[in-house]
């Protein structure tokens, strides 16, 4: 248990904004840039922006979640960190669970905060903003889980980062459908489904990512 805490502390130091190995505030700036560009592209029709803005925020969040994937697993895999951990009895799955939590903490809370200025730029109503925020809260753990599993799968490939981005998109579609779907339906069922998908993905991702790291050793 204390090994897991040590691991988590290292992962947080690595990934949190201002840390030494993560993408920093880049995903956040990217997310805000998309929210800023959209009104320029479709014109200043306040009604159109208010109706479609929630969906744009969701797409921006999904794309922003791809940015940190490049260095999420591959650096440690190349450096042999997982080998050293395995020799110390720390299973790859535990290492990936810690990495998943740190990865989510590194991008999701900032994204939620940035949703407020993004919503203001798009002219979303207070209620829509609340729905988007709750949806992102339920959906971002799932996005982080998909991202981690894909990052681990592509870590040993050349040009893996670009491939990871492409692979995340189809896998994240269910989260997007139900998460952004909460905007169209007034009842909370979409939110609950998003949360359920996120939970399932968070349970599976460390196992898949751990298996990917073990498989990478054999190659």
């Amino acid at each position, binding site marked *: 248990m204390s090994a897991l805490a*040590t691991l988590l502390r290292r992962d947080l130091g690595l990934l949190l904004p201002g840390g*030494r190995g993560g993408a920093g505030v880049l995903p956040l700036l990217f997310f805000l840039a998309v929210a800023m560009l959209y009104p320029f592209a479709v014109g200043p029709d306040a009604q159109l922006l208010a109706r479609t803005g929630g969906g744009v925020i969701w797409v921006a969040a999904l794309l922003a979640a791809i940015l940190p994937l490049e260095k999420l697993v591959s650096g440690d895999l190349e*450096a*042999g960190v997982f*080998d050293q951990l395995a*020799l*110390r009895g720390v299973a790859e799955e535990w290492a990936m669970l810690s990495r998943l939590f740190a990865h989510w903490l590194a991008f999701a809370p900032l994204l939620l905060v940035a949703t407020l200025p993004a919503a203001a730029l798009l002219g979303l109503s207070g209620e829509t903003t609340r729905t988007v925020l709750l949806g992102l809260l339920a959906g971002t753990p799932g996005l982080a889980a998909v991202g981690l599993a894909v990052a681990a799968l592509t870590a040993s490939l050349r040009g893996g980062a670009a491939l990871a981005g492409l692979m995340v998109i189809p896998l994240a579609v269910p989260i997007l459908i139900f998460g952004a779907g909460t905007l169209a339906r007034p009842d909370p069922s979409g939110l609950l489904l998003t949360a359920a998908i996120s939970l399932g993905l968070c349970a599976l991702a460390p196992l898949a990512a751990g298996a990917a790291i073990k498989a990478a050793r*054999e190659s």
Partner: protein
Amino acid sequence: MQARLAASDLACRRGERLLFRALSFEAISGSAIHIAGANGIGKSSLIRILAGLLRPFAGTVESDGAMGLVDERLALDQNLSLGKALAFYEKLDGCRDPGRAFDLLQLGPLMDVPVRYLSTGQKKRAALARLLNGNCPIWLLDEPLNGLDAQAVASVETLVAQHCDTGGIAVVASHQAMALPDVRTIDLAEYAA
């Protein structure tokens, strides 16, 4: 320290090539084994098989005692100072007195230097310090002398000898000769498939 490491009938295949086969040995407390052979003959693969990081094509490895590995991959955070990067492993290993190993390997003055600025030999010494502080009975060393100067080579030889004296096992894969007392040499060329 009580430890045992036994390999029976090991074979290793990388891609389409069978590197070695029918390799068996047993090491008990206090023994040192030098794995010799030319480049690409499978020394590193054998070390990784013994460490449990690579599945052998055939055969089994039995071990009794924790294993520590030093190979060409440093596994330290490049952007951290050496002291902080090593502290992560000290915490994992529950090491309370890391200073002795740093003194032995003359790492003291380097503690504040970021890992990415260290030279090849300094990195190797850092990996050896982590190994010492891990306090494992079984040492697996893959080319531990690479990049070390004469003085550092001598101190590594002393460290391995001391480790074996106190009941540890050392398996050293190296194409360089290493002065170790009572060393058993396994020439992988004899097992080449």
